[in-house]
């Protein structure tokens, strides 16, 4: 067998003084890094197999382990970095497309970190959220231009809305790409915190119908798991056109992940590949999209908001405008850092635009066209913390989707091996031995805690700005200032520079 030129990515270091040979590391590493040498009565390891998921480090009861970047140095080269050299070795061995998981990890600028928030001083008092009411309630859906009140009541019924206690929802992640326990965790957390999780294109497992009131059911190009019961089960429907991690690309769930439960939930044969085509084969225009939107509304008696999810690409503003005009109640935009269960590496890292620009452009365009009220904007694909949420809303979003952040709350360590199905944390896997590692009771507790913690922080930030309702922040770009941005960037973001 020809020698592989790949060298290890990580080095596992074991403090022999602390190791008690309990073999927890060995049992927990599905990659087979650790093994017990009986003759020597010590644990040994194969660094090459380590993916840096830290499962062993976290589980080791004596803290004997750490994982470091493999210290091997190439001759310094600003152009040919380690990643690119490794990729070539790998492709020279396999001849295949490079696949990966999670989101774009390249060092593009993070515009959230180039925007700062305002705070009240002297002339407009700040608000203490612990003493005064603070409203985060958000409604997603089409709003009328004006409302008419007759006899103290609305003269006309409002279009259907999704009611959120916090402006944060869990992004679309399918059962198949992630484990049922992971979906259960998010569903339960959504219920506890008054928000929504999204089925992705995975269908709705029978155990999850009880969470219908907190579910957005997705209809994607493969139409997996879609039937009238499914559409009616959710509180809202989302048509998926694109995904930030792989704009223009479909999905492929390999047959080995299609076990009995995934098969039943997606309504496809056991063990068959679930291939989501790149386009919807019935949508080649905004008019076609409008047909699907209204088919779904018709199927659900016009009782549920229907949204459309797209990836943030170059002409996102015009596309969003078309989507609004096609009758969507909300448009979800996924930035180029958005995660995935599997995507071609080069697509993930090179296609799409930052969500900050996409959001600013879409909000601006819809306002200019006078249709901003007709559609809510949800953004995802890079939200890391509560400040990112606040900045997104100040830029014009109604709410945000969090995917990667939610998975990190469940235990994800961003090793980017989702596509292998060997997730040591029991999240991105269908292996019955691994899925047990995520106890949905714990997962739900952690995900709900994250939402609650962020909600507290958002209230603090709002209070600091002298704002007592999230509504008053929406599109309020005066609350933002740019740092280290050029004129063009400032103008696209529609914000002033710090000091202005």
């Amino acid at each position, binding site marked *: 067998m020809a020698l592989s030129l790949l060298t290890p990515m990580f080095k596992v270091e074991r403090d022999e003084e602390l190791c008690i040979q309990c073999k*927890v590391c060995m049992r927990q590493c599905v990659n087979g890094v650790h093994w017990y040498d009986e003759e020597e009565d010590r644990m040994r390891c194969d660094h090459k197999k380590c993916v840096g998921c830290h499962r062993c480090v976290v589980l080791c*009861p004596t803290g004997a382990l750490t994982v470091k970047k493999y210290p091997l140095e190439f001759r310094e080269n600003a152009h040919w970095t380690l990643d690119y050299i490794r990729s070539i070795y790998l492709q020279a061995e396999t001849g295949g497309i490079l696949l990966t998981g999670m989101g774009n990890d390249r060092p593009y600028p993070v515009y959230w970190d180039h925007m700062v928030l305002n705070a009240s001083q002297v002339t407009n008092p700040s608000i203490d959220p612990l003493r005064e009411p603070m409203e985060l309630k958000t409604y997603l859906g089409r709003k009328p231009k004006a409302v008419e009140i007759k006899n103290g009541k609305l003269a006309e019924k409002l279009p259907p809305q999704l009611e959120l206690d916090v402006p944060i929802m869990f992004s679309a992640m399918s059962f198949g790409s992630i484990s049922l326990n992971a979906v259960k965790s998010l569903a339960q957390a959504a219920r506890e915190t008054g928000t929504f999780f999204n089925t992705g294109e995975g269908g709705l497992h029978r155990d999850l119908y009880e969470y219908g009131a907190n579910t957005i059911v997705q209809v994607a190009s493969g139409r997996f798991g879609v039937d009238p019961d499914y559409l009616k089960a959710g509180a809202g429907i989302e048509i998926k056109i694109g995904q930030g991690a792989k704009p223009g690309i479909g999905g492929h769930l390999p047959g080995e992940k299609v076990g009995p439960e995934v098969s039943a939930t997606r309504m496809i044969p056991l063990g068959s590949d679930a291939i989501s085509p790149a386009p919807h084969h019935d949508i080649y225009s905004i008019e076609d999209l409008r047909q699907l939107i209204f088919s779904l509304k018709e199927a659900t008696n016009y009782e549920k908001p229907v949204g459309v999810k797209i990836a943030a690409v170059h002409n996102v503003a015009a596309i969003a405008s078309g989507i609004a005009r096609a009758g969507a109640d909300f448009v979800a935009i996924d930035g180029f850092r958005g995660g995935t269960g599997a995507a071609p590496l080069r697509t993930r890292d090179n296609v799409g635009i930052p969500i900050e620009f996409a959001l600013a452009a879409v909000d601006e365009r819809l306002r200019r066209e006078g249709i901003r009220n007709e559609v809510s904007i949800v953004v995802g694909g890079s939200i890391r913390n509560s400040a990112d949420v606040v900045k997104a809303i100040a830029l014009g979003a109604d709410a945000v989707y969090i995917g990667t952040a939610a998975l990190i709350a469940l235990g994800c360590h961003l090793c980017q091996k989702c596509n292998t199905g060997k997730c040591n944390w029991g999240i991105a896997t269908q292996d019955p*031995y691994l899925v047990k590692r995520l106890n949905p009771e714990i997962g739900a507790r952690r995900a709900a805690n994250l939402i609650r913690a962020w909600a507290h922080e958002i209230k603090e930030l709002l209070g600091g700005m002298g704002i007592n309702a999230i509504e008053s922040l929406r599109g309020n770009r005066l609350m933002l200032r740019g740092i280290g941005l050029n004129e063009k960037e400032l103008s696209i973001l529609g914000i002033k520079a710090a000091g202005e």
Partner: protein
Amino acid sequence: MKKVYVREEYCIGCHLCEVYCVMAHSRYPHDLLKAFKKGDPLPLPRLWVEEKGPLTFAFQCRHCEEPHCVSACITGALQKDTTTGVVTCEQERCVGCWTCVLACTYGAIRRDTKNGKMVKCDLCSNWGEPPACVYYCPNEALIFVERGE
């Protein structure tokens, strides 16, 4: 009474319950490192982690209402505590006849062949509550609850 129950659907087969059971019954019941580094010989874990394919679960004494082991014990070393309900073994009186091993229909008893004594779960009566296995179960697969039987 409160007992340790396993939820096998969340048991990850890490064996940390065993590791901490050993610690709790060692000379250093609150110091894992010393328990293992200085404990020679190490006490045996009082529970079993059973594994077959993806199925894994920890299992220990059920502290039965009418324990077969107590009925079977030839020396009277095994007793069910009338107040706590814990089935305990008075180690000095155990002669290692293993009748309890044959009698316990749960297979919950372990033979310490080095010392010629049986060992079994004592629900960490001398360690704390919840028992160490439950306290340290990283996935909350082991729970310590009252379950009205």
